[in-house]
């Protein structure tokens, strides 16, 4: 598709300051009619702020917004909507107990009669959904819909208001691969109609897959704006971080000891009864890192949860040092030397309302005791917390600081420090560096390598291929609940892993290069 020169929305020299922080510094961006425009940048690069200015949630301190050739001033989102600009937020703005059609008409002015005609609205919604292939039941309650369908409702909401510019903030973060494919098809059909789509993301392969034009932000400034055909993933990555992404860790040769963790053909179902893992067998030896690669949602989280018995095994067994621990509770498994760094560090890995000190003893509240286990030994706990803060350079005013107020990187360092401090024989790590900045990634990687060199068996689940390839000694790829392949890290290439992640050994055709990041 050729992007016409017709510019629909232009943001000119936008500057936005929050107190002393300059979130957007003289940023310009123009969006053409009928294009998918990707806005790329690391966390905190200012892309969300820019989009919120375009949507009228914030007002720019300097600069102007021009829509269809006319300068506009958005005081709040309703002004933006009136100009045909709509936004799908990362967290959906839907009223859960209400039906789809009620959510769609919510906030719209009624016709002169003032009577709410839901039937007519539903008919129009149905027509829209048929036209764009966004299958939906207008009368379904939103709370019963899966995340992917809720996103569809959000998009339909914008189409119902006849938005010409659709802003999507991290639209794929919560979607399964299938839902992702559906979303991309929808977006393409929308811009074929002449609408413009802006997607805010930091996933490079998605941009390469669907965008026509990409603008890169870094540190509040617009650093580049290029057509997709003139760039590559590597090029984009370099523009995004301002240097080649060659995060490397000092990796000593792996000296695997005896096998510590054995997983013997386990099967696991998720909360809704779906088969998430089917006949998975794995071995991890002391002193090695086994990387589990795979597109998210292929059973990796369930595997991690099953290893700590946060999720029940349906079949199979788990052995630790040759001893069957399949029936042990999480507490028993912890005491036998299994540690776990979960992906959801605020929801699972920490209690955000408690202090750093309290979080430092989470999971070991029965070790830091005196008086025969009846009393907490506050002195030792405080010392322990201070040790973690010092060793992993957790940036915090003091140890009594509320853990939830730490940045993601510092919280992750705290959790990592806590989980390796007990010298576990097995460490399970899930998405260790998700959403962290480069500095924090490096320290987390170093922490993991140090644990490996001490002889800890590490099972690392990650969706980032770079991380998998850099850190692992062996790599297993999960695809739809099974191990699609296993190889030594030296034999692994992104292409080979990408094929396995797309299900190469199951589907003969294989090779979905969109996901070979």
């Amino acid at each position, binding site marked *: 598709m050729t992007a016409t020169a017709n510019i629909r929305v232009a943001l000119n020299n936008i500057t936005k300051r929050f*107190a002393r922080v300059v979130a957007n510094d003289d940023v310009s961006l123009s969006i053409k009619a009928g294009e998918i425009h990707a806005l790329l940048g690391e966390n905190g690069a200012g892309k969300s702020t820019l989009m919120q200015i375009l949507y009228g949630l914030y007002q720019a301190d300097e600069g102007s917004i021009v829509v269809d050739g006319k300068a506009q001033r958005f005081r709040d989102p309703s002004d933006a909507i009136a100009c045909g600009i709509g936004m799908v937020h990362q967290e959906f703005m839907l009223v859960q107990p209400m039906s789809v059609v009620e959510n769609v008409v919510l906030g719209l002015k009624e016709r002169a009669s003032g009577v709410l005609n839901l039937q007519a609205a539903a008919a129009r919604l149905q027509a829209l959904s048929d036209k764009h292939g966004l299958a939906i039941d207008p009368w379904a309650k939103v709370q019963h819909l899966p995340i992917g369908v809720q996103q569809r409702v959000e998009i339909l909401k914008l189409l119902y208001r006849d938005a010409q510019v659709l802003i999507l903030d991290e639209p794929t973060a919560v979607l399964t691969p299938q839902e992702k494919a559906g979303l991309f098809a929808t977006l393409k059909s929308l811009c074929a109609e002449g609408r413009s789509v802006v997607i805010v993301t930091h996933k490079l392969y998605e941009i390469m897959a669907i965008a026509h034009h990409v603008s890169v932000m870094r540190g509040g400034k617009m650093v580049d704006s290029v057509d997709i055909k003139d760039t590559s993933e590597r090029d984009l990555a370099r523009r995004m971080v301002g240097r080649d992404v060659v995060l490397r860790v000092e990796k000593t040769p792996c000296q695997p000891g005896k096998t510590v963790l054995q997983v013997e053909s386990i099967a696991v179902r998720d909360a809704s009864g779906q088969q998430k893992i089917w006949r998975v067998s794995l071995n991890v030896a002391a002193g090695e890192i086994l990387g589990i690669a795979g597109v998210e949602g292929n059973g990796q989280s369930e595997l991690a949860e099953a290893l700590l018995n946060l999720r029940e095994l349906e079949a199979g067994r788990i052995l630790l040092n040759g001893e069957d621990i399949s029936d042990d509770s999480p*507490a028993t498994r912890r005491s036998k030397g299994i540690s776990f760094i979960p992906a959801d560090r605020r*929801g699972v890995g920490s*209690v955000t309302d408690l202090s750093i000190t309290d979080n430092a003893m*989470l999971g070991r*509240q029965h070790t830091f*005791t005196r008086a025969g286990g*009846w009393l907490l030994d506050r002195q030792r706990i405080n010392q322990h917390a201070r040790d973690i803060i010092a060793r992993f350079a957790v940036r915090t005013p003091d140890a009594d600081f509320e853990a939830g107020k730490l940045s993601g990187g510092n919280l992750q360092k705290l959790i990592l420090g806590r989980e390796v401090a007990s010298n576990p024989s097995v460490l399970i790590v899930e998405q260790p560096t998700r959403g962290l900045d480069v500095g924090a990634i490096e320290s987390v990687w170093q922490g993991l390598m140090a644990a490996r060199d001490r002889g800890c068996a590490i099972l690392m689940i990650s969706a980032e291929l770079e991380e998998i390839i850099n850190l692992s000694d062996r790599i297993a790829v999960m695809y739809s609940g099974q191990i699609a392949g296993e190889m030594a890290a030296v034999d692994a290439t992104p292409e080979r892993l990408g094929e396995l992640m797309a299900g190469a050994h199951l589907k003969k055709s294989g090779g979905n290069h969109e996901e070979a990041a």
Partner: protein
Amino acid sequence: MKKLLERRLAPAESTGALVLTSFCGILAAFIIAGLLFIPFGGNPLSAYGFLFDAAFGSLRSFGLSLVQSTPLMLIALATIVVWRAGLGYIGFEGCFLLGAAAASWIALSGTPQGFPWAIPALLYWPLVLIAAFLAGAIWAGWVGALRVKFGGNDVLISLMANYVALFIVQYLVSGPMRAPGDLPQTPRLPVESWLPFVMNGMRAHWGIAIALVATVFVFWLMRATPAGFEIKIAGLNPRAARYSGVDVNRRQMGAVLLGGGLAALAGLCAVLGVQHRLMEGISGGVGFIGVVVALLARLNPLLVIPTAILYGGLEVGGSAMQRQTGLPTSVVLILQSLVVLLILAGDLLRYYRINLPGGRQSRSPLAEEQS
């Protein structure tokens, strides 16, 4: 230009700020309620004089306030334990009633209305405490089990269970435990089964000691023991609790049982310390006022003591004031409600900072500039 009143990004959390805002709330409540006295011909100042004199003016009146506050403390502690574990249980009224019934039953041992066999004096106190505690624990326990095991709505079930408990006590006092006579009530409990008075001439009984011991115990449990820590994280974040090896169901059940037991001890104090017989309406809504006290104390066990004494004093002093001045009873109720309302509303104040003219100038950059 700096505004005189500036909104903070996070509320001020210091003890000083808490005390100050609470005090402002109480003061405002007294002023507003005082204005209400005037149309009824009451002089607010002298009325409040009566109130404080009756509540805290002498050892005797302070004793009365203590008597009033004892069950409030125990119920508030029960609320803290149960709510900290993440439940919304509010069936303390029921626990109170059944605790009172169990205590009366043991106290009447050896009579036709009580425990069939006479209990030796030495065994009486341990037995009566255990019986009351168990009654409350079981009463709260079945509701807790429905919530913890089956995901039932504990708020609703416990609320309804209160009525069931009410009817059970009604049945007991009009049936098996009824004293000969017209009124549906038990016989007067034998004097040796009463909670002794702390001092001659003072109405305060040793129930206050039970409440104080319970306060220290709850404070110690939540702060210094692994069990309390596990209860806290089970309430704050069940997923993180499970992850860190906490048996969430067990901790929640434990908290409910303890909470039910503590609430039942409040019933024991009322029946053995004040009424000296079991009858209908013995609870008088104390199971709900105790929850209010816990909220006012911000679920902090140590703050429960002053809060409960203040509230108990307000009840004692308020009714004395009402008798002395002839103000309508509803005025006293309004005063109490205003105190609760304005202390809780005082939290709003902690979100603001007052910029006095000529004060320090260097703080503004962190505040958001956009309104």
